């Protein structure tokens, strides 16, 4: 894998009053990889993404994208620079058609300035074909099911032609067939040259598509490494499932040593 760092946070900290929701996080994302970001509920994953994409201002720390310090930039400038994200709670533009929703990304995103409205709509059609939603382009967003709304979020972000894409729980609430489809989509996006950070609770997806995993707990880094390492790390299992589960697993392993 290419080891060039495309995105980096240095000591990113976000306080809400006296509470550190994100505390001194250093993260490096390498160009071309799929990095998984996991952690129990309330670990600060979404706050972390909000802080580094300009939705919130960090209390301390720096955010560097392609060698440029973008700390505290407003969200729209971050978006135009080539970073896109989806939202855990989907944010479709309900009063607009699917095609118009996606065209907004093509109009204002990374290469938006070079496009006319018509070209943006054509780009939207292209992206909709890519995510296999072409047949729904003239539907209003409020006619879509949750699985399609999640995919619309993805299409809107992709239309921005980002170099780096943050996906915040795009699989939550999907059934297993839809999860398979979403995993395939993520691989396809990555293969097209987009670096990805995916926040996910679906471990099958984390194990299946990521190259590396970063674990957040109580707003700080708990572990990072390959998916196998991290998902078998007792500290990670403990954070997710509690002390007792780790104990039981240890006893089970002792009872049935190396087959």
């Amino acid at each position, binding site marked *: 894998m290419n080891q060039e760092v495309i995105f980096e946070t240095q000591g990113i900290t976000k306080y809400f009053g006296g509470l550190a929701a994100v505390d001194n996080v250093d993260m490096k994302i390498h160009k071309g990889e799929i990095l998984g970001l996991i952690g129990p509920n309330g670990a600060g994953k979404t706050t972390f993404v909000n802080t580094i994409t300009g939705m919130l201002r960090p209390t301390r720390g720096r955010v560097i994208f392609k060698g440029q310090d973008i700390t505290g930039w407003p969200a729209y400038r971050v978006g135009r620079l080539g970073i896109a994200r989806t939202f855990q709670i989907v944010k479709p533009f309900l009063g607009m058609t699917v095609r118009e929703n996606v065209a907004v990304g093509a109009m204002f995103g990374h290469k938006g300035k070079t496009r006319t*409205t018509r070209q943006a709509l054509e780009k939207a059609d292209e992206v909709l074909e890519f995510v296999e939603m072409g047949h729904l382009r003239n539907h209003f967003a409020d006619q879509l099911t949750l699985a399609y709304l999640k995919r619309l979020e993805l299409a809107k972000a992709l239309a921005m032609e980002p170099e780096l894409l943050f996906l915040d729980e795009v699989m939550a609430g999907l059934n297993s067939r839809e999860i398979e489809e979403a995993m395939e989509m993520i691989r396809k996006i990555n293969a097209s040259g987009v670096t990805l950070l995916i926040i996910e609770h679906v471990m099958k997806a984390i194990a299946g598509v990521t190259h590396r995993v970063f674990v957040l707990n109580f707003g700080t880094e708990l572990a990072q490494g390959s998916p196998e390492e991290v998902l078998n790390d007792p500290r990670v299992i403990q954070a997710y499932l509690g002390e007792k589960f780790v104990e039981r697993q240890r006893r089970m392993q002792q009872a049935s040593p190396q087959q």
Partner: protein
Amino acid sequence: MKKSGELQNSPQAASKKVARQKVLLGLVGAFVVLLAVLPLFASGFWMRTLTLLFLLAAMAEGWNFIGGYTGYAAFGNVAFFGIGAYGTALSMLRLHFPFFLALLVGAAAAMLFAVLVGLPVLRLKGHYFAIATVALATGVGEVADFWTDFTGGAAGLTLPFFHPIQLSNYFFYYIAFVLVLFGLGLTYFIMKRKLGYSWLAIREDEDAAKMMGINTTWSKVVAFALSALMAGLAGGIYAYWNTFVLAEEVFKIEYTLQMILATVLGGPGTVFGPFIGAFIYYILITLLVFFLPVGQLHATILGLIIILVMVFTPQGVMDFLSGRKRLTLSALLENIRTHKV
């Protein structure tokens, strides 16, 4: 996938929609031609009524930018009307500008005020924004009322009559009419462009809009300034037509309410909605006040009608005209079910 939506994608449905749009456009076109030749037959009373109606329609078209398309409930747009009126009057009286130049000065002043005020106030959302705009409009009205040296205060400003006076009715009728057409054209033009898409995105979800690269502050301020442009021009025309400007008259909160009502009745966030809504509202109120034997009950009856329209067509009459909903009893009742609080 929901099956109900499939129909809209079928080629037959698409061509039907296009046909309906053509019919609607044709009807509006015929209506515009009718209004253009109307002064040949209409009495002075109806010409004055229609001139007022046009000014209201123009302000409603302006309100539609910020309130309808961008989704910010501005409750102080009368401030722009008042500033346009005072700006025009003062330019004519103090600087001896010809009317059209003075009108531009008045509109520019209204836009400048919208930008300066919009930058801080458009950071607020929902009720907070609404209340802040009410407060601002009231504040500006008070300044105009009490800054006697500059605005003439409670004595008001008296403007020269339009010359030649026999053509006065025609002049103001047509200039207000042109303003309405300008508003329609401007709306159509913007909504085909990126600015229009940015307004809709902000209305539907401002955070998502921001993250997708939209400079939301800029888009909102432009929406606010353009609504000020329409109201400012209307105010300037009104001032010269009325030949008298008084703070308590041109800063009346009723004007704000009227432009909102017209937009909401017709269909907020549509090109023709405010224009159609202004007609419905103004013709109703004229009939009630002058022609129907309802005495002092006219305001009550108007209120009732507005409640009924809001209950049955919360998205305005454009919902039916554009074919999004059919005008049937079941569709009307459906509206009650989906919009109950």
